[in-house]
């Protein structure tokens, strides 16, 4: 009997995919099986459009403990028997429909990925994109998302220490909500999400299973839906219970850290719920399973096997306990006042058999379920890029000396640049007592509990630059994240990524995905920062128009002595301020894709460029200078250009600054151009060191081939001057401290 189109649409399978499934199974799937295959073969679970591209990423290294994609998150050895576990994941589609719960459950999901590894979560970061706030719908989404992140993370007791908030019309109606979590584990106690050993028991712990979130993976996350359908799709968004998650987190950590020998695996229930949790554990362990669904605790009566298998009820974990330790594992969860129910057993087979009251309701071969078709497309360069890239900012009138200060103040109060204090004060960013550099600077820095080491984490991506050149934009996202981490004195070690793109079935969107991936891969190779984990969110479109390509990069750096972390603000008067990297005089082309160009001229055009070898040398210069104790502060030069960087260092440090460098060439490019590969640092007065810190900085610059340009010095009081810029630190702060 041919399946009807409505049934296929419900699980987002194409007709030819269905036919392939029938051919592989040798029969038509029943309704439950169709639901399960639809979810597992969705883009969200099966990565059918992105997997071949993800193979381009460098993903191994001496310190990398996990195989990318094989576990719930990536693990990086940081010495002393400890490792960092991290991953970033999107919750864009649910957040577009129900912002508070969408964002809250996004946080819940990524935190479970981390403690499923046996790690204790120590930090959350959120990379957010919205349309401009003057549209009430965008403001509703923004406030709901920020509220949901705070509401969940604050209750959980995991600090939210960073991330980004970016606004652009490209995200109207399709906000991006990417949540990253970082955890710490003893390397010897890392867990795996696998099931093996005949007779071992699947224990379902945490919340009861309800009808929420059905078709989250296949429906919401794996196709484009018209906004008009959002209202009716709201039931597909799950509702979070952070209190339950807190108990689960503590119980799972106790299990992993003290009784890891009682279990063979631990897996969280996320997209496609029980279906993907069981099938993926079996695939990884080379085993099969028999589940008895009547043992699944339910929130409501009358749920069908289909609903139980596809429910995305939150705050549930699957424990694969050794059969001889089931009682002890159960007692541990009960101590934490959690349900813990045996719902099935591991078999030596290669099929997942689902029964209800002894009657078989589905029979799923693991191999077929976990090997969806993969699509490699030949992308076509978006037609509009030709004209966009040909745009020459040099044809615009230069800013005059008289206008420059006003432009700086305007840029500082642009939501993309202005202080995000109004957001991060709603997040508990201190709990766990490890926050050394709080949000608001380049990267946040945390102490690694129980050690003197630190980790620095940053998330970055300029969608505007990726739109204008996906390859360069992807590489720049990595370079900027690395610069941010380096500005705290940390050495970059690994990357996690979240690829947010439009519909990959459109060849010009596919082109942007492929080229962004290639750019990221090249940058990660250059900086020796393998991609250890990640997530793909496709089908991000509104009214048929894709979002900016937005591959968000989460980058981890390590600091050997966390008490020596650097900050973005100037610290004390009399310091000498230097620009490291590309010098003061810049071509007009560096205005391409800049905040200045969009803010002042309403133009998003031009062509970004990046020199990865120069970026690498710049990172080395900063890290070596810091290792020698030369640096007082460091701040990445990015959105808004050099003028905004200096202003931020002054206002963050509450320190005056007087420039004494002569500006040459176009004023707009020198002040507001966004040439890559630049960091502003300050060093103490020359009396600090025999021979002078400045001389040493120049020597290091010469040795590494990085230009070192003096800009001026920090001064007591409120003065801020640089070239034609004349204002006060107070005025800078007043412009910057708008509350979004």
């Amino acid at each position, binding site marked *: 009997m041919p399946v009807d189109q409505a049934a296929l649409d419900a699980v987002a399978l194409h007709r030819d995919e269905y036919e392939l499934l029938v051919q592989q199974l040798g029969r038509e799937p029943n309704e439950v099986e169709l639901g399960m295959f639809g979810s597992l073969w969705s883009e969200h679970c099966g990565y059918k459009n992105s997997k071949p591209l993800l193979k381009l990423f460098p993903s191994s290294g001496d310190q990398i403990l996990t195989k990318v994609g094989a576990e719930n998150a990536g693990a990086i050895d940081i010495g002393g028997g400890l490792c960092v576990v991290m991953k970033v994941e999107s919750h864009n589609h649910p957040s577009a429909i129900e912002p508070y719960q969408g964002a809250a459950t996004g946080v819940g999901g990524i935190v479970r990925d981390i403690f499923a590894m046996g790690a204790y979560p120590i930090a959350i970061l959120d990379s957010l994109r919205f349309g401009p706030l003057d549209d009430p719908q965008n403001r509703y989404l923004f406030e709901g998302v920020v509220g949901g992140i705070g509401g969940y993370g*604050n209750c*959980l007791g995991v600090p939210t220490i960073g991330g980004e908030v970016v606004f652009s019309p490209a995200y109207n109606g399709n906000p991006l909500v990417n949540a990253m979590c970082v955890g710490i584990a003893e390397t010897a106690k890392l867990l795996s999400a696998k099931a093996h050993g005949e007779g071992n028991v699947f224990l379902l712990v945490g919340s009861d299973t309800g009808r929420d979130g059905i078709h989250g993976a296949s429906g919401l996350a794996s196709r484009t839906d018209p906004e008009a359908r959002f209202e009716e799709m709201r039931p597909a968004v799950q509702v979070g219970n952070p*209190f339950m998650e807190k108990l689960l987190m503590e119980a799972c950590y106790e299990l992993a850290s003290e009784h890891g020998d009682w279990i063979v695996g631990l897996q969280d229930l996320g997209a496609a719920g029980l279906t993907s949790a069981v099938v993926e554990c079996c695939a990884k362990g080379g085993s099969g399973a028999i589940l008895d669904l009547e043992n699944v605790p339910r929130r409501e009566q009358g749920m069908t096997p289909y609903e139980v298998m596809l429910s995305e009820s939150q705050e549930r974990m699957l424990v694969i306990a050794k059969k001889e330790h089931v009682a002890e594992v159960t007692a541990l969860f009960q101590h934490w006042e959690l349900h813990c129910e045996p719902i099935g057993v591991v078999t030596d087979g290669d099929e997942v058999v689902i029964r209800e009251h002894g009657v078989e309701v589905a029979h799923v071969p693991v191999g077929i379920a976990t090997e969806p078709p993969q699509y490699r497309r030949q992308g076509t360069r978006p037609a509009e890029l030709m004209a966009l890239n040909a745009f020459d900012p040099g044809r615009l009138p230069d800013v005059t000396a008289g206008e420059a200060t006003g432009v700086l103040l305007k840029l500082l109060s642009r939501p993309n640049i202005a202080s995000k204090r109004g957001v991060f004060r709603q997040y508990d960013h201190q709990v766990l*007592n490890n926050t050394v550099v709080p949000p608001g600077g380049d990267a946040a820095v945390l102490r690694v509990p129980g050690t003197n080491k630190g980790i620095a984490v940053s998330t970055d991506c300029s969608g505007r630059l990726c739109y204008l050149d996906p390859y360069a934009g992807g590489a720049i996202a990595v370079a900027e994240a690395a610069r941010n981490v380096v500005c705290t004195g940390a050495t970059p070690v690994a990357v996690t990524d979240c690829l947010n793109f439009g519909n990959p079935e459109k060849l010009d969107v596919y082109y942007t995905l492929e080229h962004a991936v290639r750019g990221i891969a090249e940058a990660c190779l250059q900086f020796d920062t393998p991609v250890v984990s990640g997530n793909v969110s496709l089908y991000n479109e509104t009214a048929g128009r894709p979002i900016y390509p937005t591959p968000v990069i989460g980058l981890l750096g390590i600091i050997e002595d966390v008490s020596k972390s650097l900050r973005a603000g100037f610290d004390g008067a009399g310091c000498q301020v230097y620009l490291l990297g590309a010098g003061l005089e810049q071509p007009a082309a560096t205005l391409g894709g800049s905040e200045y160009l969009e803010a002042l001229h309403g133009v998003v055009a031009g062509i970004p460029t990046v020199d990865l070898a120069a970026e690498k040398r710049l990172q080395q210069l900063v890290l070596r200078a810091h290792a020698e104790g030369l640096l007082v502060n460091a701040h990445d030069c990015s959105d808004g250009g050099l003028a905004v960087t200096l202003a931020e260092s002054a206002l963050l440090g509450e320190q005056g600054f007087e420039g004494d460098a002569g500006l040459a060439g176009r004023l707009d490019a020198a002040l507001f151009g966004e040439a890559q590969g630049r960091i502003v640092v300050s060093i103490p007065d020359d009396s600090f060191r025999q021979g002078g810190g400045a001389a040493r900085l120049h020597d290091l610059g010469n040795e590494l081939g990085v230009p070192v340009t003096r800009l001026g010095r920090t001064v007591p009081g409120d003065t801020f001057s640089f070239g034609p810029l004349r204002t006060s630190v107070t005025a800078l702060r007043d412009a910057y401290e708008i509350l979004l």
Partner: protein
Amino acid sequence: MRFAIIRFPGTWSDRDTYHVLHNVLEQQADILWHRETDLSNYDAVVLPGGFSYGDYLRCGAIARFSPVMDAVVDFAEAGKPVIGICNGFQVLCESHLLPGALIRNQSLQFRCQWTYLRREGGSTPWADGIPDGTVLHVPISHGEGNYFADPDTLNELELRGRVVFRYCDAAGEVTPAANPNGSARNIAGIINARGNVLGMMPHPERAGEQLVGGADGNRIWESLLRQATTILAG
């Protein structure tokens, strides 16, 4: 001294308090699950911050019925030192060990930020070592920390010297701008009539090391420790 740190389901300042008491101040401390009923081995009790039972009902309203609370009430009534921080303060109010209530922040938003606290009069082992007028730098982190009580209760608290900490600015001035949550009369911390029970919204355990932004919070723990030493020596 030996501290009992009570962990309700949903508590999250337990580890932070343990870290400061044990690792920084080198005291004995145990984290006790809320089903514990015997506190006889301890010299002081800490009810730490967090979201007990998710705070889905009124904050602290369920935790006050936890098995351990009978023992905490007995401990307090015996005159032994009890401190409730953040959610712990809310639990103390719900248990009627302290008067008043903590309602939603005036901003209607969660607030995590550093605040200044002025030490006011009032004798308590938790703050006797801190001279009146001293300004401490200690962070808050709450959505419902807006101290509320009827005027008679507030007047009684003021009259009896039971307001121990008030939100102020860096110079020690008690101003509306320095009030982060709308608390009545900028109240950040109060004691019971006997002085052995202190409730405060700010987190002294988050101000225990310069590395994380400051160590002023230790003044509170050290005040208690000095008192204990005096008693032992006396």
